[in-house]
């Protein structure tokens, strides 16, 4: 602490300062107790969870060498050379992987499109401000909730039984999940619209569908597209693992490479996935920012 004389800051006399400091201490003490309580609760939860999740830091530290050596091996070919010294050997299966990657993208696209179309038709029924019947709204909401809470892969597992191994099961799983997620987001968009155009159209005696088409849809479309693009990004990532349960895409080759320890194949496929996902992210990001810009100019 600097001495009061050296500091340019004016100091209050002690007698005046004491009650202020006491009040400050009291208010801080209450907050401290609160945070202590929160920290204790979290610590207890962590301790209990660690037992249940068999956390073993010793094992992690003992085996962390495995992780680094695993990463190290990922970037070595079978003859021990670094992968980038021989790209032709590293990407020996490029044609097949690109085809599977294309299939993955197509799965994500078709799944997103089908889900978005379904969500588009459901969201007007689920929005509180325009829904024609309260009970219908509840039913649609619960349905969307079910679709997005059950993980995609669980749907994929069931669809694989029904539709057989292959991309169709994956597409439908993506579509169902997208329907649930977008149904909720779209309904929230519809709930935030300006109701005057809808009232105006209804006042001319138009049917509910016409009121939605000319009153609500024009206000919501750019937000819908923006959310759909965001979902497409997520679905591309999701579609890469559909192959883990036999539902098509590049995941099938990836899981096989990981399980059979084809190290250089794993890194080759992972790199392809990372590049594809970043390209898609960047592209959709550009389009979404332009859409938001359009929105703000209106």
């Amino acid at each position: 602490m600097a001495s009061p004389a050296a500091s340019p800051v004016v100091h209050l006399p002690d007698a005046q300062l004491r009650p202020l400091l006491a009040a400050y201490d009291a208010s801080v003490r209450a907050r401290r107790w609160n945070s202590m309580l929160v920290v204790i609760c979290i610590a207890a939860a962590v301790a209990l969870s660690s037992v249940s999740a068999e956390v073993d830091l010793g094992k992690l530290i003992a085996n962390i060498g495995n992780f680094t050596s695993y990463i190290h091996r990922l970037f070595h070919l079978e003859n021990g050379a670094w992968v980038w010294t021989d790209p032709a050997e590293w990407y020996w299966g490029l044609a097949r992987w690109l085809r599977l990657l294309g299939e993955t993208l197509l799965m994500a696209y078709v799944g997103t499109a089908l889900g978005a179309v379904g969500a588009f038709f459901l969201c007007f029924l689920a929005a509180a401000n325009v829904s024609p019947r309260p009970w219908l709204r509840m039913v649609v909401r619960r349905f969307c909730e079910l679709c997005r809470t059950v993980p995609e892969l669980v749907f994929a597992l069931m669809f694989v039984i029904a539709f057989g191994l292959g991309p169709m099961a994956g597409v439908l799983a993506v579509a169902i999940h997208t329907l649930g997620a977008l149904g909720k987001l779209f309904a929230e968009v519809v709930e935030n619209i300006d109701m005057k155009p809808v009232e105006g159209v209804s006042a001319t005696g138009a049917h509910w569908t016409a009121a939605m088409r000319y009153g609500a849809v024009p206000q919501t479309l750019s937000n819908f597209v923006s959310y759909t693009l965001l979902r497409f990004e997520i679905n591309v990532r999701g579609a890469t693992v559909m192959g883990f349960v036999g539902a098509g895409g590049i995941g099938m080759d990836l899981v096989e490479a990981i399980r059979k320890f084809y190290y250089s194949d794993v890194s080759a496929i992972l790199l392809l996935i990372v590049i594809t996902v970043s390209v898609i992210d960047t592209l959709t990001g550009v389009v979404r920012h332009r859409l938001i810009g359009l929105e703000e100019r209106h």
Partner: protein
Amino acid sequence: MATRMPVDIGAIRARHPHHFGRSSGSRQLLLALGVAAVLLLLFGMAQLGFFDGKFLAGLGKLGEIAGLMLPPNPGDWAHVRLYGMSLIETVAISLLGTLAAAVLAVPLALLAAKNVTTARIVHFFSRRSLDTIRSVDILIWALIWINVVGLGPFAGVLAIMTSDIGNFGKLFSEAIEAADKKPREGIVSTGGGAILGIRFGILPEVFPVLASQVLYFFESNTRSATIIGIVGAGGIGLHLAEAIRTLELQQASFIILMILIAVAAIDVVSNQLRFALIGRRGRLS
């Protein structure tokens, strides 16, 4: 039926020619994009075998499966106990993974935030590495961690932690960038160093936002944690995948029901906590 005023469409058309005329250039572009999207959709569906009759045959089978799933039935009490324990394990995996990721993501987020890290090269590389982590799905991380610590829930914790470091790093750095810079300038101007500036100038402001994001991810990670068991990384997913693969569909639907209830309960609790932290207005989308 109300009587309607006679409408003279011809007169209206004459008064507002541009509303009835041919559509403008941008509208035609949008239309073309829409048509292209639909064509791509049809092409994709054809390519993925939707029009081969496999789809319709599968729908019939799917109906059959849905029928077999009802009513949900665990079989006996031993199964209920088993599933209950794995559900607790799932929630534990999610909690630990989320917390560990949040703790590790804070320093990374500071590195990736433009207003804290002025060196552009550091900022660029931390951003890119966070993006790379994020573009690899959680199941892939689970498979990689299984190679390190073996099968079991611990691999699941590490997988959730890894994939969430990417998510949190991005979200946290955005929150930090959005923070008001005046408190920090004030602290630095009184002689506090960079560390004190972050501790007292930035953290108090962004902490509620970060905490609410962590709570939000806790809920969504519980959903992810239910599936990492499919590849052997602990939790209820193992039992669920097994039940579906062996066509014990009533048990499968019972497990799904348990997951739905657990996720809904966590949703309610974490929403209450979030509202307590940031108030009802500051909802995250």
